[in-house]
């Protein structure tokens, strides 16, 4: 009996449709978020993340109707974010049906946003999303969809974010995102060992072996991927069976 490693599909949306791209650029349409959510819910996903990547770019308000429609399909937890800049933005997302809210750029600019959300909804509802990119001997925090440097060390930012009240870290490797060559194991292990909260690894997944590695060597508590699930390159059920056969604790679907 132990806490299962979570497999989390991620829907990057433009507000209405699921989109995808490599290294945060070259977006193309990848489907209907509600249909995908229903599929992942029944296939044994442990949680679902829905991000509004357009909101983060254009500073548009978030996509509450999409969250509502997705939440109605789910009997598993839902995390939503993208463009959350204020407590009021967070409230709207939670009211629409999200169990957790992710914050990214706005939290880098004003870390108090984390404590405001955490104070109202509890630390378990606040996920600090960190986009990190290798820069010499450390990892640099990137903001505004991975485009700009925040001139901040990712490990130090993760620790500070937890001190401000984040209950989980969603860690995306900007170097690996969309490449399908595997998660960034050194980055994930470094962050996971530095903080006291769970870490979700993101960016670069393709093969079942990538998930096995990020859970064992990367010390990740959860792993997130998008297009390999959307395109049916990888079934969640078979991925979990693969991990279970390697003695990595997962929740096997019925």
């Amino acid at each position, binding site marked *: *009996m*132990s806490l299962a490693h979570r497999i989390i599909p991620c829907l990057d949306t433009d507000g209405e449709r699921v989109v995808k791209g490599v290294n945060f650029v070259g977006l193309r349409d990848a489907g209907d978020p509600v249909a995908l959510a229903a599929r992942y819910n029944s296939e044994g996903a442990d*949680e679902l993340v829905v991000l509004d990547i357009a909101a983060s770019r254009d500073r548009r308000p978030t996509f509450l109707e999409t969250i509502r429609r997705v939440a109605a399909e789910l*009997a598993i937890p839902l995390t939503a974010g993208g463009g959350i800049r204020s407590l009021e933005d967070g409230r709207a997302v939670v*009211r629409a*049906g999200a169990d957790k809210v992710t914050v990214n750029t706005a939290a880098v600019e004003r870390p108090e946003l984390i404590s405001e959300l955490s104070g109202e909804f*509890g630390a378990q509802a606040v996920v600090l999303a960190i986009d990190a990119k290798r820069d010499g001997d450390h990892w640099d925090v990137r903001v505004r969809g991975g485009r700009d440097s925040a001139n901040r060390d990712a490990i130090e930012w993760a620790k500070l974010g937890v001190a401000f009240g984040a209950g989980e870290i969603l860690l995306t490797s900007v170097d690996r995102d969309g490449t399908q060559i595997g998660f960034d194991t050194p980055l994930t292990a470094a962050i996971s060992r530095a903080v006291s909260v769970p870490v979700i690894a993101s960016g670069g997944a393709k093969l079942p072996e990538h998930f096995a590695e990020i859970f064992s060597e990367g010390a990740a508590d*959860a792993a997130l991927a998008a297009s390999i699930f959307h395109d049916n390159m990888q079934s969640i059920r078979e991925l979990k069976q693969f991990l279970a056969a390697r003695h990595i604790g997962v929740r096997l679907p019925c």
Partner: protein
Amino acid sequence: MNVTLIDYGAGNVTSVERALRRLGVESLRSNSTQSIANAESIILPGVGHYSALIRALDQQNLRAPLVDALHRGVPFLGICLGLQALYRSSEEAPELHGLNLLPGRVSQLPASVKLPHMGWNQLRLARPSRLLEGISADAFFYFAHSFAATEPNGEAVASCDYGANFAAVIEQRNIFAVQFHPEKSGEAGARLLHNFLRLVA
């Protein structure tokens, strides 16, 4: 069947409402003293900070009708904070008084594990459970909490191990409570809610 869902202004009320709806039951969301006094069954959802729930119950004058209803034998299901509220107090807000329907105190899980305890975990059954009827013994349920009842006194029919052993499912007369979120626990969670509704019917 009348299910009153206490809506104290925070937490996972909508998710619980949706989960009940998927089982064909329309619940009544309420924070009125009157509807709690007249309830045929009560669900107290909750997630977040212990103080938010306890303060809301007091400020909205819900404590007395709720405790009365539970003493009268009205079937009750507490979820997450709704379980923790049943105890005398919580380490998360030691200055506040819980509902004191169960002896003991809610404590923080040890720092030897990552907190919050976030994700899917399994249960250790202590005795036959009405809520868990028909659910596989190795089923997983979704947890999201840092505090728990780590010293139960026989009220727990199932416990969970995460840093410490703590009460995961409570059944005592008409009082039922779960530390995890059945409304977010897939088919196993739906079955548990179904079992509660059947006990109520």
